[in-house]
């Protein structure tokens, strides 16, 4: 296993300790609940924004805790939703008179943990609501009641509700905004390699040298179908076809375009994908108003990328442009 790791059981806790050590005075780390929170949270004039999910998606979500983004993140183990009492304890610690918004990517495990954790917190008098994110167009909605997965598009929901809560919006308003952003956000991903969970020590599946997985999620699970590997432009064409046709996005729309790396792909390649997506959208009369090219939500060391579109209006664009500050910092 080509990883920087000690005992795989400590993968998450050692990473979180690193995040805390790198951000003294800004972040607080509570090991018992895998909890990373802003040192100055909760703010009683602000809805607390919390995201939980499995680990292995870094920088999501522990590294987007900060002003204008998340107030706290409580990850579970690698690719496993947090146990419900992590959610419960987090909700209690972040309790604000204005309420707590729990952001949940739409997976069975995550929803159960958050439903149960929220109920327990409410029994203790905490005001909390859940907002479910489900931007992945790779999953055919009808067949499975659990429905579409939440993937990299969750960043836009985080950014928008983070900004709104910072500006003083109340819980209902924050939820309205989060739902609105989720409703106009669509993502599709492709993997060139399988990822290796540290506790497993070997790749989750085997991909031939000339194969790719089309329509992958963010947990290393195989995708919608296996295809022959094509060149970058052809991959973008296929991703765009799936994403644009789904909402659909139409000529005259103004969008945010995100090319998200899945962990093992260098940023240079992401810009090659971005270039072609930008041009093809222009061909369709769709204007890219905001650009995002980086890693936002990964699958450990998986080589791959996802493409996300968000249809912008003045409200959403204003919230996306609002100032914010996260633990992943270049300077």
């Amino acid at each position: 296993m080509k990883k920087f790791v000690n005992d795989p059981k400590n993968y998450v806790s050692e990473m979180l300790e690193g995040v805390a050590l790198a951000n003294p005075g800004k972040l607080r780390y509570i090991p018992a609940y895998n909890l990373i929170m802003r040192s100055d949270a909760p703010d009683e004039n602000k809805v607390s924004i919390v995201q939980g999910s499995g680990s292995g998606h870094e920088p999501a979500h522990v590294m987007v805790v900060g002003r204008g983004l998340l107030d706290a993140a409580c990850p579970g183990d690698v690719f496993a939703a947090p146990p419900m009492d992590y959610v419960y304890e987090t909700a209690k610690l972040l309790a604000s008179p204005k309420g707590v918004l729990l952001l949940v990517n739409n997976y069975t495990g995550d929803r159960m943990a958050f439903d149960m954790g929220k109920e327990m917190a409410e029994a203790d008098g905490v005001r909390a609501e859940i907002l479910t994110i489900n931007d992945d167009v790779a999953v055919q909605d009808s067949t499975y009641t659990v429905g579409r997965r939440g993937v990299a598009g969750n960043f836009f929901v985080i950014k928008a509700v983070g900004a709104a809560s910072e500006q003083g919006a109340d819980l209902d308003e924050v939820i309205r905004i989060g739902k609105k952003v989720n409703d106009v956000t669509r993502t599709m991903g492709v993997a060139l390699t399988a990822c290796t969970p540290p506790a497993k020590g070997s790749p989750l599946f085997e991909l031939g040298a000339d194969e790719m997985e089309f329509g992958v999620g963010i947990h290393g699970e195989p995708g919608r179908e296996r295809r022959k590997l094509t060149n970058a432009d052809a991959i973008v064409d296929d991703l765009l076809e799936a994403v644009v046709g789904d909402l659909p996005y139409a000529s005259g729309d103004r969008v945010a375009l995100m090319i998200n790396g899945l962990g093992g792909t260098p940023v240079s390649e992401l810009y090659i994908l971005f270039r072609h997506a930008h041009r093809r959208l222009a061909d369709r009369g769709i204007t890219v108003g905001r650009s995002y090219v980086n890693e936002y939500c990964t699958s450990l060391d998986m080589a791959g990328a996802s493409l996300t579109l968000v249809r912008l209006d003045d409200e959403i664009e204003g919230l996306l442009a609002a100032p914010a500050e996260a633990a992943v910092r270049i300077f």
Partner: protein
Amino acid sequence: MSLRHTEFVVRTIAETAIENEKYFGDLDSVVGDGDFGYSLARGFEKLLEGWDDLDRTEPGAFLKRSGMVIASRIGGTSGPLWGTAFLRAGAAAGHTTELDGEHVVAMLRAAIEGIKARGQSDVGDKTLLDALVPLTDQLSASLDDGAEGALRAAATAAREAADATAGLVARRGRAAYTGERSRGSVDAGATAVAVIAERISETWPRQGATS
């Protein structure tokens, strides 16, 4: 089934899950995300760590406390599902201190209903239910054969049913995202139920003898 028998069953489940961490994880890798073995093992380790402090006033209370620990300490889908199963089984046991075969079947049925409700799932969705339901049906049908005979029959039924999940398409859990591609491999949760049932059936006679 006394408190001692209940402790024995829970401990066997825990030990089997811990010993099979890698095997269960590999099964979950085929069309899932590979964390099932890890989640179960870490959660049941936690249960064994606090083993001596669990409520032992009666079997039902013991199961409920175990369910609380499991639900709150196992992540992923399995924590809530397995925790709910233990909680419901404990509740169904009520305050009875000596549980007979009928009781045990009723507890298992309660666990099954809990999983179905929590997971919004049913038999045929290619989940642990596809082993647990046939196991319970067979146990119920074989109660006249005595504990050992009934357990053996139930374990066999669970194994057959778990193997048969290879023919199903997953409609719940992470594997469901792969649609038709999930056919051809067994479900990790169902196989775990079979492995655990076989272990209980094997070790029960020994345990029975020393009681």
